[in-house]
């Protein structure tokens, strides 16, 4: 029986779209992956801040 696709687990606090998920959508990394990852996670954390501060602060 074919495996059912598993839904993505809930991202960890501080994250909306985890890098591990995003990298699967990108072409193969031919340069520094850490740089791409760092930038992705920086702005992903801001997206997290955005939604949670709407709930907590605004």
């Amino acid at each position, binding site marked *: 029986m074919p495996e059912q696709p598993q839904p993505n687990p809930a991202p960890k*606090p501080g994250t909306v779209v985890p890098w591990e998920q995003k990298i699967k959508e990108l072409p193969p990394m031919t340069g520094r992956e850490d740089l791409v990852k760092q930038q992705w996670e920086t702005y992903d954390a*801001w997206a997290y801040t*955005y939604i949670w501060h709407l709930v907590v602060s*605004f």
Partner: protein
Amino acid sequence: MAQDMEALYQQRLKRYTTALRKGKPDKVPIRPFVAEFICNVSGYTCQEVTQDFELAFEATRKCCLEFDWDATVPNMVYLYGTVPQVVGLRYYGVPGVGLSPNVGFNYVEPPEDSNSFMQPDEYDALIADPTGYLFSTWLPRVSTEVVRPGQPATLRNNLSFLKGGMTMMNYFSAFPRAIERMRKETGTVSAIAGILKAPLDILADKLRGYIGLCMDLMEQPDTVLAACEALQPHMFQIALASADPTKTLPISIWMHRGCVPFVSQEHFDKIMWPTLKPIVLELWKRGHQVLFYAEGKWGAHLKTFRELPAGSIIFHCDRDDIFEVHRVLGDKFAISGGIPNVMLAYGKPEEVRDYTKKVIQTVGRDGGYILDAGAIVQNDAKVENIRAMTAAGREFGVY
């Protein structure tokens, strides 16, 4: 001049942080959280300080120069009204937009009918992925602009994220500069850093509404507990990410309706407290104090708060009897506040002076007290009463 201001700042910082840690400084620190009160001093309207945060920063600096305060918040008008406008948030009334420009912003309670921001059968979705639920289900309901995933994207939807993100970033980015100007131009300390709320309050305030949550507490309490547990790590994350990296200033928790009689003692004991306490303990483990800004009355829970490690919180007293608070908590935690806002609004300067003297000479007798109003000071407070509170603080607050 600049050197004098820095010396004054350092003196005030030492005074404030000594009291935060239950020590006895040279004087009782004075730290009012002034919101729309800044309009009474600056001449700006509530609309102006709500919609233009630079005016709010400026008005706060004007207050700092006018009064001899040790610490305050650069802008305590905590709603920057442009954010709800560009995001289209339904739960705020903003001064100058349908409301008088001279009243503070209004918070509109979430509806509990079919228009509820979160339906009672959606707890599982919230618990499974809180962040995803907020983006995909909650935000489209609370916003006039945002559409649900799967619906056709609209220009207004796209603009709400673009403008909302830029507006929020612009506001948050302005704080370090405002803190620095308050320090250099007025010698005043920024009083807090970081924000925390109890998971149960989040459910009531922004998701289910208070009435909806009360129904859920009766009909599905285990599910409510599970939701609070799911929210817990996110509350911790937001608190930690916004905390003072030097661990000098406390993280503030704004405590709303998690106490008796808003919830039963049983629900406090089984849901509210077990999902808040671990956050406070973990923050303390990492060196962060939490300012328990206990809005309203929390007298039913004072003994419970004693479970926390000595010094881990500062208990801010709003409408509780501050002398009783001091009797129950004074040996473990610093205390702030307690000067009734009603007195500051409707009383006479002599009453304010006498009451402030009594609080200082009782609660502040051995240190560990920070003089402040019971609640955030709005534009109903009289300038002469705030002046009387400040003057009494200086007159009677010398150790």
